């Protein structure tokens, strides 16, 4: 694959990923990951200090499924929607089988009363495999520029 090709595939993956979350199809969300995977949401400040703990930490696709189970069955919060804007993808390293990429993200959250605002801004630090045909995340670290969450962080970013 040439770099244009890789960039194209990574960007397409991000578009599909954002659509999945923004449309509320959480059940499909774990399918963007390999069985063995890491998904984390952590603040920039903690990430730079080398802290382990952030807002979300899943170390298998099944843990992602458990987050979805909780969202559907046990979590209680007011209806809300995310809108992801992902861009500025930089391919940091690439080979035939995998690549590392970094992208910017902004998430606008809209609450049911109509109030909306920038809920999160930050970066995706992604490791992506191309081995199974469809690209999948081996690791996705969501680094949020702010350490503060407004009220609650329910769905994934």
């Amino acid at each position, binding site marked *: 694959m040439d770099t244009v090709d890789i960039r194209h595939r990574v960007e397409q993956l991000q578009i599909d990923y954002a659509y999945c979350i923004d449309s509320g199809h959480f059940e499909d969300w774990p399918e963007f990951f390999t069985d063995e995977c890491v998904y984390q*949401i*952590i*603040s920039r*400040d*903690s990430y730079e*200090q080398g*802290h*382990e*703990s*952030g*807002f*979300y*930490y*899943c*170390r*298998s696709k*099944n*843990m992602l*499924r*458990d*987050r979805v*189970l*909780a969202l559907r*069955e*046990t*979590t*209680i*919060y*007011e209806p809300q929607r995310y809108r992801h804007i992902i861009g500025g993808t930089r391919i940091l390293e690439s080979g035939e089988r995998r690549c590392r990429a970094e992208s910017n993200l902004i998430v606008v959250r809209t609450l049911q009363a109509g109030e909306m605002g920038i809920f999160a801004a930050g970066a995706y630090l992604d490791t992506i495999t191309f081995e199974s045909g469809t690209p999948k995340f081996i690791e996705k670290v969501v680094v949020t520029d702010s*350490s*503060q*969450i*407004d*009220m*609650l*962080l*329910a769905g994934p970013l």
Partner: protein
Amino acid sequence: MDRKPSAIETGWPEEGLTRVPYDVFDSGEIFEREQERLFRGPTWNYLGLECEIPRPGDYKLNFIGTTPIIVCRNGEGEVRAFVNRCAHRGSLLCFRNRGNEKLFTCVYHNWSFDLDGNLKGIAFRRGVNGQGGMPEDFDEEKHGLEAVRVTTRGGLVFGTFSDDTPDLEEYLGPQMTGFIDRMFNRPLRVMGHYSHRLRNNWKLVMENVRDPYHASILHLFFGSFGLSRHTMEGAALLDDSAWHHIVYTKRATDDISGSEYEDGKLKSMKSNLSLADPTLLDEWQEFDDGITNMVQTVFPTVTFQQITNCLGVRHLVPKGPDEAEMIWTLFGYEDDEDWQREIRRTQANLVGPAGLISLEDGAVTNFVQRAIRGREGHEASVVEFGGDAVESSENRVTEATVRGFWKGYRDVMGL
């Protein structure tokens, strides 16, 4: 906004601690009184962990009430705290959350202060070419930073503005002190740090953390995966003053037969659920006493928690009558092994603004704030679960721990 007279004028409801007038959650007048009587009064306020400022000159910022505070370690290795306000014309002295300095130098006009808060330098003190400058008799010694009295225990740092605050051990009483020693028993290592903006009065959060009634009801995950149920052995403890509390659970003692949990009456019990990756709840028995969940508060605004092996400090900072910030510090110990660190890290999924057993708290405290608007007169909440007792109990089917908070509050606020 046109405000009705608050509880300051009308007095507390005659029922006493089983009623809480809603005014206390949105009155600006009460908020101001809290700053003066509670946060500048005879209370110990959490300032941080000693391991966050290990070397001389290390500092971090925090708040007591709304007052910005610098916590630092001086040249002799002692912990000091000051109001983060330059003694010249009031600028923030430090504006980075943490760092290391030999002197704190204000950026506005370069006045500088040593690590004990003494004024050490004034830019152009003697003027320029014999003109201007500070008066000859200006006494630097009278213009140091406003000091906060500091105490430490088990690596925790507390501060108070008042000379009347008793020693920490007396403030807490032996049982509460004992629980602090139980968890803060050796050098700590910070594993995570974040903050949670709450759109409600700070006291709704303190009621919430001291409320064992809601835990297995609101947080369905808790009940469904058997992390905490009222059928487990546990206790709701208050010290003699009732200002501080502990609620704990021993998970291994659960027997739901014959309870509302068993026949599915409680919506909070979804026993058909199972985790695809049960390692999410991997744990080890960390404390000999068999306690698997423990939440402890030190009046007014700090909470220490043990959710199995997820250990943390939640420090609440009031931002206004209807806004607060909860600052979380998750920690383990310096001598943790990698597998222990990984378990703590995984269990951190349970807590915080995205926590599987705590995410709802930020929602419900905001629900209260929204629902108390537009009230007719002096409505009050009902805090009568477990009667009107304000004492420890061997069960957690009580709001005594919430009433204890209001006792402390009324003692200090003169309400």
